[in-house]
């Protein structure tokens, strides 16, 4: 990478980070509007089954839900400016602390899922592209259709029944090391493998018809070399896009997978907040997930820059 290229990347990153601030403010505004227009009052969940009107009013005052919308929103922005997400209505815990504890778990799960999905997806995609019409291509095709069609909860429960209950190989739930992460990561990886395989297959087939591949064949390069160093590399762009999108969505919380396997991640935390109408938790999760998604997209753009010379990040000077 040239010095000039490094500087361009740095400017690009800086720009994306600067764009992140107004983006996050817009996201907080839209989310705040949506939360306030949804039916369901958190106070009724907080007070339990038997509460006096007096107690309800005092809690409403305490959490500020008796104030008008703009004053509540301004209060929330003030809180964010102070560097925190506030406290949960129910547990009174600092939301930022809880998110900081759960986000690494979600990242770990997302990384593990991608570590399974990328090699398996690419391998399946290559098989489908290079062995078109063969028996193995048909098997891989069936698997990919199944993988994108089956609901995640069903895959998760089946994986649990087989690997935990029947074979007793892996624990059904918990948050921790390899043996705990295997089943949720596998469950998350199944649809990603299928999507990656289908995209990679289509992309490889498209690349195989291009002029430079015919040139490479004419030069007498071995089919393996052509496949790995010319076709696959050229077909990576859409694959990287899919990886970026899948990874971003995993980091935004794989709610169902985390719930089934008792994985202590941000998706489950957000879900609990939504069910309980715990606004500080919901807002904290939305802001974190938005920021994570933007950063992942930025990283994807940077990877494009390196793997395809046709795509260059410009410094805006033309």
């Amino acid at each position, binding site marked *: 990478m040239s010095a000039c290229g490094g500087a361009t990347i740095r400017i690009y990153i800086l720009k994306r980070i600067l764009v992140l601030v107004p983006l996050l403010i817009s996201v907080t505004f839209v989310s705040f509007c949506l939360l306030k227009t949804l039916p369901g009052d958190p106070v009724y969940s907080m*007070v339990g089954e038997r509460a*006096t009107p007096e107690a309800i009013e005092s809690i409403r005052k305490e959490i500020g839900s008796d104030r008008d919308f703009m004053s509540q929103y301004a209060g929330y922005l003030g809180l964010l400016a102070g560097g925190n997400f506030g406290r949960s209505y129910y547990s009174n815990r600092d939301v930022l602390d809880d998110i900081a504890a759960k986000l690494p778990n979600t990242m770990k799960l997302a990384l593990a899922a991608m570590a399974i999905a990328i090699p398996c997806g690419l391998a399946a995609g290559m098989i489908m592209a290079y062995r078109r019409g063969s028996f193995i291509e048909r098997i891989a095709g069936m698997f990919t259709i199944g993988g994108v069609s089956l609901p995640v909860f069903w895959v998760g429960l089946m994986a649990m029944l087989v690997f935990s209950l029947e074979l007793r190989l892996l624990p059904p739930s918990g948050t921790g090391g390899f043996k705990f992460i295997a089943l949720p990561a596998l469950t998350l990886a199944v649809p990603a493998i299928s999507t990656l395989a289908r995209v990679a297959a289509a992309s490889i087939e498209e690349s195989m018809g291009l002029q430079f591949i015919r040139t490479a064949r004419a030069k007498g390069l071995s089919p393996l070399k052509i496949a790995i160093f010319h076709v696959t590399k050229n077909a990576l762009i859409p694959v990287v896009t899919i990886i970026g999108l899948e990874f971003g969505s995993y980091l935004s919380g794989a709610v169902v997978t985390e719930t089934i396997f008792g994985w202590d991640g941000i998706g489950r935390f957000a879900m609990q907040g939504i069910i309980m109408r715990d606004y500080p938790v919901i807002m904290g999760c939305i802001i974190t997930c938005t920021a994570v998604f933007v950063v992942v997209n930025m990283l994807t753009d940077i990877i494009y820059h390196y793997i395809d010379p046709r795509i260059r990040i410009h410094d805006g000077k033309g």
Partner: protein
Amino acid sequence: MPRLTFALFRLAGLALLFSITSCSPENRTNDYLYCRLNSNPSTLDPALITDVQASVVAAKLFNGLVGLDAGLNVVPDIAERWEISPDGLTYRFRLKRGFLFANGREVTAHDFKYSFERLLATATKSPNNWIFENVEGARAFREGRADEVGGLKALGPYDFEIRIARPFSPFLKMLTMTPAYVVPREAVIAGGPDFASHPMGTGPYILEEWAPNREVVLKRNERYSNPAAHLKGIVFRILPEDLTAFTEFELGNLDIFQIPASAYSKLRNDLRRKQYIEVLPGLNTYYLGLNTSRPPLDNPALRRAIAFAIDRKKILEKFYEGRGRLADGPVPDALRSWHLDKDRGPVEFNPVLARQIVADNGFSGVRLKLYVAADQEAVDIAEIIQGYLADAGLTITIRQLEWSSYKQAINNGEPDMFWLNWWADYPDAENFLFPLFHSANIGPAGNRTRYANKEVDRLIELGQHATDPALRNRAYCEAEEKIIADVPWVFFWHKTDYVVRQPWVEGLKVYEIYNMDKGLDVSLRRRNY
């Protein structure tokens, strides 16, 4: 450039490998009991607790003046004895000496005064302050007209007195509730809002770790000897999914498991497990609430027709797999100290009569909205009810809402009908009459059918304030019979729960009220994990 890409991938791979291998696997800890909570406790500050999950945990961390024994009688806890004045207005408690908080400080009467005043203080924003609303001076304190509650007095380090404004028969039983536990002032002040997640009490266990949505770990309080716990600790694993929890139990990773509906048949018919199942006849009532405040259900004839139209017995036996006892009225059988007049008892299934009432009163084709919370079992029951009422000539629209919206809707009286249940907070019939049927409690205080009957109000109040048990029972009996006759609810059943234990769990007792189990009965036979 390919070299850089490869290096990035290698780095990511190494990071992943490190993140996986650097986490030690979670293993069982010997002599710790593993149980399930199906949702995260909301808070562990007793003053703020309103959910069962939090109460189950808090019972192990805190104590109150009095507790309950297996027969639901009030027994000493931190108070070794008490006296109630003949006029029923003064409760004087003598505290045990040497009862310690987890920080080693002795509990005194001043701590109870502090804890109860804290519960009442508006700054605490406790939804449970109604427990002490009858205490003398409570209102003046809440309204800021007094610095302290005149009716709460520490007469000495071990003597505590509560004066109430009017005789109130369930008061002593209300003191067994979770919000009436004692808390140490210094820990509350030092913890500030974090006291809710790092609580300190007097109980047989101390909070070791609370990882929200993951687990709550308690360890034995070595200072507790009232009596001391057999276990070294308890791990509550938070597992919302029934199938996940069932799998964990089957693998021996949970020691105790409250059987969910989905696993009931399998476990009840499992010969290996059958002998380890404990039956818990719960203090609860499941009901179909009928909005009595507006047409058409303000007409008692239509309410009776609905009650006649539904075969509760069949639903209980076939759909609910017999997991309960048919309800005669709102009060669970275990709390009813009187006999209901059978002629004025609940209406039996009579579809012909139901159709006739509907037709005679011009209700045919009437449309009614039935609200249910987002819970598959509730939706299934709603559909069964819909079928029965269609046979009677009524058109029912089911509306399913998530819990928070559902609560708001039923508190505001939006639906014509709703499916709900009520569980005892303290073992007194009053807990099933006053909040649910007194007109002062319409809305979020409990009376969601918006039922108002002045005579029932009078009888419930008579029972509450009667010092003579016979008079109290008569008043409650009459109130319950009038409620049954007015049909603000279709009384379905009192649910029975089933708890299965592993063979190595000994001494397990199941209790009717969620905060009765202090984790003192159970022990684990030695086992290699």
